[in-house]
């Protein structure tokens, strides 16, 4: 044989070449999407309802949005380009009238709800009208006060008539309330519709065992690319250790919210992969602009400069957090890095001196007019936010170094929520809050810093005519460039005011078996991250 007559080196190279090509083939053959299988998905916490307009919290959202239900459009945040794009889902395209007050949506044809009800303009009108009329009750209605009337133009064309021009209108379709529920199911079940979710998504609802699990199965008549999985079982596993153990034993394929300290251990097992993703939830301190000592903007600025963000992130979060540079999270539309938020204790000391604070009694804490530079921070029950005790102690130490003192008070969750809704005029405390800026800068600016919300969501008692004007202008601006410029100005102004001390965005870790592929890791909380249409199991 000729092959054997060749020199040993050439034989060696031939074999090497063949092996080389095999290497190329291997991953492709292994990575071919496989049909079938049930994805076992562990989530921390219980589902309360599977009715989109009432859904709150991750446990509700991740099952509802994108899996059982779909909205007219969706958002995709690209982690690389850091850009958010709008993608059509149940609407094919949309357009705005010249005066900006009317939006026309052209709907996808041939879509059916899981119960066989056809999806059309009537179904869209029914859903929006439901949230406007609040019957059956919808906890959330971003549409109320914005959409006046829904008009059915044709079977698959629907017009929204708004009372005013709304700059962030399309972003309303990114929140849970915009997900379209089968009108027949709402008629049938009334206020209990959340127990019988019926949407148009790639998975349909099978069963919900309260406190235990929710089961979904593949919807075979799905209008788009059908799911690979036969179904998904969501299991509610509150304890993080239990989630990890169940992942290791194969009782779960995916476990969400894994504590930072378990990353390495899990990766070492070889069977499990861990991915982290940035969330738009920013950790913040809410300061009261009305009462001493945080009524002085120099004190607030000093607090901001005295916090060693990089140090805390590397020591407490092991690098799995990103410094916040604005009130808006970097993955929300309209984000502008208004302040570097550098650690600068000397600047803090200087500012406090300017403001007239001196340490008269040499106890390390500054005073002014006999009053101590001291305040209280209320935090929800310890452990509610990851590493909350550690981070508050670290900040406490940081501030003490420049002569500011605060006491930390952890409260029972419901009591804390009650306090945060008590108006700033009735109390003189600061809060530790994790609050998302959602998909658009509007949500974290307008309702929180407009003076008309003092006593409500303006937790700071902040009144500034310039800010009010900017917020009003931004809220009705439809031109994206102009709108961005306005939000940029707002963020720069807020960075000077330091009412919200923006700390960092946490990364959330998901651990999953290496047999699972095609999971989405997207930064927007209620969108692609939880969609499992593209997921498959080896």
């Amino acid at each position: 044989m000729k092959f054997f007559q060749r020199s040993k080196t050439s034989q060696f190279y031939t074999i090497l070449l063949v092996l080389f090509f095999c290497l190329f083939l291997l991953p492709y053959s292994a990575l071919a999407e496989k049909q079938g299988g049930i994805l076992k998905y562990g989530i921390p916490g219980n589902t309360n309802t599977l009715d989109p307009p009432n859904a709150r919290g991750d446990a509700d959202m991740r099952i509802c949005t994108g899996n059982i239900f779909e909205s007219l459009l969706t958002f995709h945040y690209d982690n690389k380009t850091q850009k958010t794009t709008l993608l059509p889902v149940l609407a094919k395209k949309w357009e705005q009238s010249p005066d900006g007050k009317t939006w026309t949506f052209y709907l996808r044809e041939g879509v059916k709800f899981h119960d066989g009800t056809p999806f059309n303009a009537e179904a869209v009108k029914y859903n929006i009208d439901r949230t406007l009329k609040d019957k059956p009750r919808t906890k959330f209605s971003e549409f109320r006060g914005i959409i006046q009337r829904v008009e059915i133009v044709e079977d698959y064309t629907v017009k929204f008539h708004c009372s005013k021009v709304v700059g962030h209108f399309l972003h309303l379709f990114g929140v849970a309330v915009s997900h379209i529920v089968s009108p027949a199911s709402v008629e049938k079940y009334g206020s209990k519709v959340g127990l019988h979710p019926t949407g148009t998504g790639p998975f349909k609802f099978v069963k919900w065992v309260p406190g235990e699990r929710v089961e979904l199965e593949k919807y075979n008549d799905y209008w788009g690319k059908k799911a690979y999985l036969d179904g998904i079982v969501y299991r509610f596993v509150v304890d993080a250790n239990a989630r990890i153990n169940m992942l290791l034993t194969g009782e779960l394929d995916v476990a969400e919210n894994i504590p930072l300290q378990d990353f390495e251990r899990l990766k070492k097992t070889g069977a499990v992969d861990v991915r982290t993703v940035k969330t738009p939830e920013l950790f913040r301190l809410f300061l009261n602009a009305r009462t001493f000592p945080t009524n002085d903007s120099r004190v607030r600025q000093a607090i901001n400069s005295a916090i060693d963000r990089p140090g805390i992130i590397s020591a407490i979060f092991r690098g799995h957090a990103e410094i916040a540079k604005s009130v808006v999270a970097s993955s929300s539309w309209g984000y502008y890095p208004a302040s570097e938020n550098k650690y600068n204790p000397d600047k803090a000391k200087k500012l406090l001196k300017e403001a007239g604070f001196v340490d008269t009694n040499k106890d390390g804490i500054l005073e002014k007019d006999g009053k101590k530079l001291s305040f209280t921070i209320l935090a929800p029950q310890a452990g509610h936010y990851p590493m909350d005790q550690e981070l508050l102690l670290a900040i406490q130490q940081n501030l003490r170094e420049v002569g500011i003192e605060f006491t930390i008070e952890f409260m029972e969750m419901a009591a804390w929520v009650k306090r945060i809704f008590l108006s700033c005029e009735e109390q003189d405390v600061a809060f530790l809050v994790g609050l998302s800026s959602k998909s658009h800068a509007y949500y974290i600016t307008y309702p929180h810093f407009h003076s008309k919300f003092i006593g409500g969501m303006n937790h700071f008692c902040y009144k500034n005519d310039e800010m009010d004007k900017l917020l009003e202008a931004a809220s009705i601006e439809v031109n994206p460039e102009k709108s961005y410029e306005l939000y940029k100005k707002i963020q720069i102004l807020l960075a000077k005011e330091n009412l919200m001390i923006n700390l960092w965005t946490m990364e959330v870790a998901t651990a999953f078996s290496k047999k699972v592929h095609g999971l989405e890791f997207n930064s927007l909380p209620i969108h692609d991250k939880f969609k499992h249409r593209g997921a498959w199991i080896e």
Partner: protein
Amino acid sequence: MIIYIIRRCLMLFPILIGITFISFFILQLAPGDAASMMAGLDATKESIEAIRIELGLDRPIIVQYGIFLKNVLTGDLGQSLQTQNDVVAEIMPRFINTIKLAIASMVLGFPIGLIMGAMAALRQNSMVDYVMMGCVLFGISVPIFWSGLIYVVIFSVYLGWFPSGGAEGFSSIVLPAVTMAGPAAAMTARMARSSLLEVFRQDYIKTARAKGLKESKVLRSHALKNAMIPTLTIIGIQFGYLLGGAVLVETVFTWPGLGRLIIESISARDYPVVQAGVMLFAFCFVLVNLTVDILYVYLDPRITYE
């Protein structure tokens, strides 16, 4: 006897009403309310107020309590504020899980405890006694959330014999039941040992031995029966504890029981679920105590309730 049982059953009503009264007002006194918990952090004051009115939380507490009592008496426990599901539908599957776990732990724990206690008492101050009491000390001192985690690591992560969580199939109950049975067995063993030792000192045991009865006969028909009374009391208390105190085990093993539901409902100020859950627990406690009291009569004919 029958009259006694009927009287005890009738006593249930004031007890239950008292319990609902106390738990209702404690919840109301706690800061925070259901409406703002339901509305979430980015809700407006108006929407919170609207929810409050819809739930009837704007009315005086005493009126709310009256409405609640009226509904309970007509068999309507209301709906969960969180899920809109009927409270009964919400609670019953969880309660059944709790009962299953409590019974499994009892069936496992009490016989073991009794046998250990008897062995230790029969060989007092011997090696057997020391080993048994060492185990008992361990069983009582080790917190169950820790022992539960250790069992999970050994028996499900490394050995893969049992699932580490959930409530599906028979195998899933084994680890949580073993975890809960540990302290229950230890308590029973200690009680059984000390009451047996007490009985052994009695004159009638001396008499029995003196008249030449076999030791096993002495144990069975004289000692054990008398020692069972205090032991039974402890078993009753322990069973009540197994029903109500399983929250930690439920968390470690993701066991969907009633304890965790109540804790979560308290956090969310989901009043109807908390009320119904507390009532159910109280009902079980009273029932267990009644059973224990009735069993006394069969163990000791001197006890009568006439």
